[in-house]
């Protein structure tokens, strides 16, 4: 009697278990393969950045040196965040100012004085830029003396957000564009010159304009230096705290040599380090 009773209960339990497992299995097989894993990933904080090959891009190994450096510093600072690259700067600014993202990465990012009060700028690299021009158009170069007056009457190709007030004051006409668009405009004669880091020019010309490799040349004297920042957002609940931790971690990487190691692995040693690391220690100390 007892055995029969157990058997009935057992059978009922088994039936329920089987039904439940079937329901789970059906649901899983119906939805599982139809969505990507990304939909189930726990939302991490995102650091939004403008695509900037070969320093920061999904197109290069490990996302490029700046991606690896920033990821390492974030990791050391205990900040669980991923870098997301965008093809346009407006998207980067949107996430920072409107979505109140934890941080963004970039250069040439113009903010109003009001917006700047809410932001914490931490330098990641000091990049030397060269003025590039098209040799067939200007066979004798552009006589860049180090003073912008020497380029009066010429047309400069600026990146969106770049401070061009000095160019305009010197009588240089300014047109805006993405880096690759600026290089194409140099070739087509729409602009005379643009300031771009040498490695970026090499990468873009090699990928998109290989036949013009010998015609797009740099002026001998550097154009100047530009700083790549990670910009933390005070309006994000963890923004201030994360910025302090990140600064400390990045300074630590500069001090213990791991910053240089990553740069060496991506871009080489010697002059390259001087060109793309600059006096980062000094900038971080400011």
């Amino acid at each position, binding site marked *: 009697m007892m055995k029969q009773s157990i058997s009935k209960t057992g059978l009922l339990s088994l039936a329920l278990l089987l039904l439940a497992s079937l329901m789970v299995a059906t649901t899983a097989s119906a939805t599982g393969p139809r969505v990507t894993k990304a939909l189930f990933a726990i939302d991490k904080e995102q650091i939004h950045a403008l695509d900037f090959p070969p320093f920061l891009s999904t197109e290069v190994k490990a996302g490029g040196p700046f991606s690896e450096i920033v990821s390492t510093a974030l990791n050391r600072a205990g900040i669980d965040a991923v870098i997301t690259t965008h093809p346009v700067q407006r998207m980067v600014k949107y996430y920072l100012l*409107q979505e109140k993202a934890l941080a963004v990465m970039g250069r040439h990012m113009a903010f109003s004085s009001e917006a700047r009060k809410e932001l914490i700028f931490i330098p990641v690299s000091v990049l030397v830029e060269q003025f590039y021009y098209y040799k067939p158009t200007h066979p004798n170069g552009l006589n860049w003396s180090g003073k912008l007056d020497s380029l009066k009457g010429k047309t400069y190709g600026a990146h969106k957000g770049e401070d061009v007030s000095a160019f305009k004051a010197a009588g240089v006409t300014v047109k805006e564009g993405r880096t*690759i668009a600026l290089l194409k405009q140099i070739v087509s004669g729409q602009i005379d010159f643009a300031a771009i880091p040498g490695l970026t020019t090499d990468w873009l010309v090699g990928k998109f304009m290989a036949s013009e490799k010998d015609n797009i040349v740099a002026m001998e004297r550097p154009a100047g230096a530009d700083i790549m920042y990670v910009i933390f957002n005070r309006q994000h609940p963890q923004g201030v705290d994360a910025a302090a931790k990140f600064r400390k971690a990045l300074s630590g990487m500069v001090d213990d040599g791991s910053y240089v190691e990553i740069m060496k692995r991506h871009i080489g040693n010697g002059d390259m380090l001087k060109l793309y690391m600059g006096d980062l220690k000094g900038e971080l100390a400011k």
Partner: protein
Amino acid sequence: MIKIVSLFIALLLSGVTSVSAADYKMVKPEKVGLSSERLKNMDRLIGRYVEEKKIAGAVVMVARKGKIAYFKETGLADVGKPMQKDTIFRIVSMTKPITSTAIMMLYEEGKLLLSDPVAKYIPEFRNQKVLIPNPKGADFPYRLEPVKREVQVRDLLAHTSGILYLFLNDVYPNPTRTMVTDLYKEAGITDGFCRPDETIGDMVKRLAKLPLYAHPGEVWDYGLNSDILGYLVEVVSGMKFDQFVEQRIFKPLKMKDSHFYIPKEKLPRLAAVWKSDWKGSLVRADDKPIIAGDLCLNPSDAEALSGKYLAGGANVLSTVYDYFRFAQMYLNGGELDGVRLLSRKTVELMTATNHIGKHDAEFLHSKGWKFGLGFAIQADREHPVDSGDVGTYEWAGIYSTRFSVDPKEQKITIFMSQTNPFGHHFELWDKVLVQSASAVAD
């Protein structure tokens, strides 16, 4: 033995009766239930447009029951060069059904499902956002919303992805649309009609990271979808898109004059593009791009012998006869001359099903037209654009080319010209299809 002999005779006969590139194997219209007398209206129609200098020339074909009953060239292909039956045309958006065919072949091979998220193959499509206008008075004019569901392969085939074309800004002025396409421009995305010097994959990866105009599945908006499909073919098949199409579609269908980049020896057969004001001013376009608002067309792209950009929405050059072979393959349920590219069931899925819900595919047509997986499909006969039958499927190209397949009447109509701007041509295309339908005489 008898069976083998019968098979041999059958093969021989099928070879004799099939259409060959050499002589086109035309038949008298009456043999396939068309009226020769009524088809003269087509002569008169095209002749009048050429005479009035609205177009320089055209090639028109009407085929029925697998046979070419009408195939006529009129006017000029270029200055001092008469139009020929084998003149090569920029078919631009008539590339799209070819690209859809490539995708559906991979679908039949089990390489992908139409319900697959595109992100499964192109990771840049993950976590896409939609640009949504904020209410008036908000701090910011727009916000980004995560997609309710990811863009699927079927969205690209049916143009329900929320991905746009820039040139349609002028056709559908709308601030949100303009904002999306401004981001396209900033990211260097073009419609591909002025070919950029990059690979299609480079373009697609950037495009995928930009906001959508609408949630996938909630809109019908003609856009860069076929270009993404072309890159998807590369990712899924492991072949360059042009090689896949040439080896798997053009070669089996004997489309000998269809190319992504024209072979040098065929350059003399390429038609010129003509600018027409539709009032009698007709000028051959020069080598400069034609720019009108957000539309950029570069006729001289077609003269390039090679290039990196392989646009699934725009790249192909072809002839009327080659496109007839492609269309006949569809009309036959996926097979031509013993070569099967698609199953009958897949062709049914692509051509006889509405994939856009309540929306109408009005861009080239009118209300009463729906969209399948690569073609517009006539859904009723109650609206202005009538191609002769419910179930007729067709598409067109921006330099003025159009094809139409009427499965019920087993009839194919193809018109090819090379005239800009294309807006005027809706009238002419519609009239061509009226002439074709009204020639049915059985």
